[in-house]
């Protein structure tokens, strides 16, 4: 049996791989959407935070022998704390200004962080081994799926669902959303809004770092891994609708699939297909698929 001229087995395999990449896009764009939706900051440092997460995991293993499972918790915490520092030192001064200032600031920070890591570790990257428990692969009949990649999809989906739940369905999420609508009013109810905002940025950074730790065993951990990805992730967020959490998750997964299919039918275009989709979507729905028209 063939689908569009390729054997259905290969086709199913490619769909699955697209889903794996989509899971990364979803998780990264989720962090971006949370930060933009609640803080109004266009966080260009997101790629660098993702890279920091991967490097934190690698350094923990290489220097301190801390294994993957601990790194999965510790690295996001460390990077989240770094995010809090960024928010306190720089970002909090910019909330009243045009979002452009936040964009420029985070872009500059990303360049600095990447530059420092390039200087320290070079560009060829470091190898992070797949954890023992998840090594090996499962034969699905139509393809051999490395167990680790299946794990990545599961974790990403769980994290996306959890984040959506916290923001849309819990009291804390309600405070957050209210705080971004009208900080002064919410503060009169005795809620510490600046603290909430700070923790939100930290949480967004931690999400990026978690994606980084998950990616470490798949690709070479290198200083450029974030900047290679960030533009695509921004496109995902724009297509999904800036700030829409559901939008970024759904779009992330969908674009992973679209990109995967492009790699089969016309590989040369796989780097730009996301942007073609972005242009088409914005022509029809300028606020993105799930965005609210202003």
């Amino acid at each position, binding site marked *: 049996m063939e689908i569009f001229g390729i054997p259905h087995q290969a086709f199913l395999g*490619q769909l699955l791989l697209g889903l794996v990449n989509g899971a990364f896009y979803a998780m990264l764009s989720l962090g971006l959407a949370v930060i933009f939706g609640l803080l109004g900051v266009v966080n260009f440092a997101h790629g660098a935070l993702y890279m920091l997460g991967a490097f934190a995991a690698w350094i923990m293993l290489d220097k301190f022998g801390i294994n993957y499972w601990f790194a999965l918790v510790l690295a996001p915490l460390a990077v989240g704390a770094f995010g809090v520092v960024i928010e306190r030192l720089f970002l909090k001064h910019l909330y009243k200004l045009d979002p452009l200032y936040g964009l420029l600031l985070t872009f500059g920070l990303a360049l600095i962080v990447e530059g420092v890591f390039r200087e320290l570790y070079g*560009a*060829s990257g470091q*190898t992070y081994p797949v954890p023992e428990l998840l090594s090996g*692969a499962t034969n699905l009949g139509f393809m051999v799926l490395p167990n680790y990649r299946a794990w990545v999809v599961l974790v990403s989906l769980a994290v996306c669902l959890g984040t959506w739940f916290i923001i849309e369905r819990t009291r804390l999420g309600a405070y957050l959303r209210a705080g971004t609508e009208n900080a002064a009013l919410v503060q009169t109810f005795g809620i510490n809004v600046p603290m909430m905002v700070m923790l939100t940025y930290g949480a967004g950074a931690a999400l990026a770092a978690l994606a980084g730790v998950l990616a470490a065993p798949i*690709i*070479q951990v290198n200083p450029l891994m974030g900047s*290679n990805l960030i533009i695509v992730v921004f496109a995902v967020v724009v297509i999904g609708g800036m700030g829409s959490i559901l939008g970024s998750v759904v779009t992330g997964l969908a674009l992973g699939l679209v990109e995967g299919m492009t*790699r089969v039918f016309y*590989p040369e275009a796989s780097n730009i297909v996301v942007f073609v989709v972005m242009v088409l979507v914005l022509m029809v729905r300028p606020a993105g698929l799930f965005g609210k028209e202003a």
Partner: protein
Amino acid sequence: MKLNAIAFALAIGFAAAASAQDTGPVKIGFITDMSSLYADIDGPAGGEMVKWAVQDFGGKVLNRPIEVLTADHQNKADVASSKAREWIDKDGLAMLIGGTNSGTALAMAKIAEEKKRPFMAIGPGSARLTNEACSPYTVHYAYDTVALAKVAGTALVKAGNKNWYFLTADYAFGHSLEGDASTVVKANGGTVVGAVRHPLNASDFSSFLLQAQTSKAQVLGLANAGGDFTNAMKAAREFGINKTMKIAGLLVFINDVHSLGLANTEGLQLADSWYWNQDDASRKFAKRFFDKYKRMPSSLQAADYSVATNYLKAVQAAGTTDGDKVMSTLKGMKIDDFYNKGQIRADGRMIHDMYLYQVKSAKESTAPWDYYKMVAKIPGEQAFTTPAESKCALLKK
């Protein structure tokens, strides 16, 4: 009126450049990938090697100080060519060294030819530089895709790996390497089943590898380099491709082997022009490099040093920095240093020995960076494009 003014300005510019060429410092420019996927195999350390060569030469030639300029081309041909043009027009650059990336090198070679300045291609792989696109001013010094294909490809096909599928970086270098390797495979009685082309600096190789796997070929030829090569290798092992296909890295640098680790690269056969542990002079150079960078030099970095030194020798011998005279002196010289021994042919191809190495297992490796054992030494006449195969007009006189 306006045209006159422009012509006048240009005339002044040329006059200034011309006079700077005779009296001021002799300027050597080095343009490479300083920050992206090829930065470790050449990059800033490559620029430093050119500076070391100048220092060791005494910092002066023809009683004029020597100055080294460096720039990052970001793997963009337009950035490379506009920087080269600016250096030549504005700074009166005497010679240009081109680091990694064939696309940028082909663009710079054109500028160098137009301005009659020697252009030394070190890192770019594409054999087009001395073949279809050859110029009297281009020297291709370290290696090229023909040599890589002949040395690594022939060995693999002769060992019974007849059936190939290529994973190719989608730009000048990848296309050259895929083409040259296909020629070698077919010439030795093998077949090429197909190829998939991935964008430069691709982050995820799983889809491409899955396509390679469904091809049922015996050999997966990786016609890419640097970060693309390491990520492809890593994914190939993850998906178990190395169990069903033999993976052939057509361009592998020692930095890639180090980065992936011996566990991931053991047994890999590769072609290169130089290895740090090949003789005393090489080890001495490597130690000096290691003391500064805490890693061993790649063959490109050794070649950067060598080409700058030999260029300065040629300037000294010719008594001028004039492009034509230096080139004819350089092509008449025997090149003999720690990097390699050989001679630059009329088409600009430096003909020297190439080596086939095999990556050691962790057990066999006795010291840090002790990665290769030599399998074969292939004389330059056999490794590179032969005059009969060449499409370069300069060889047809």
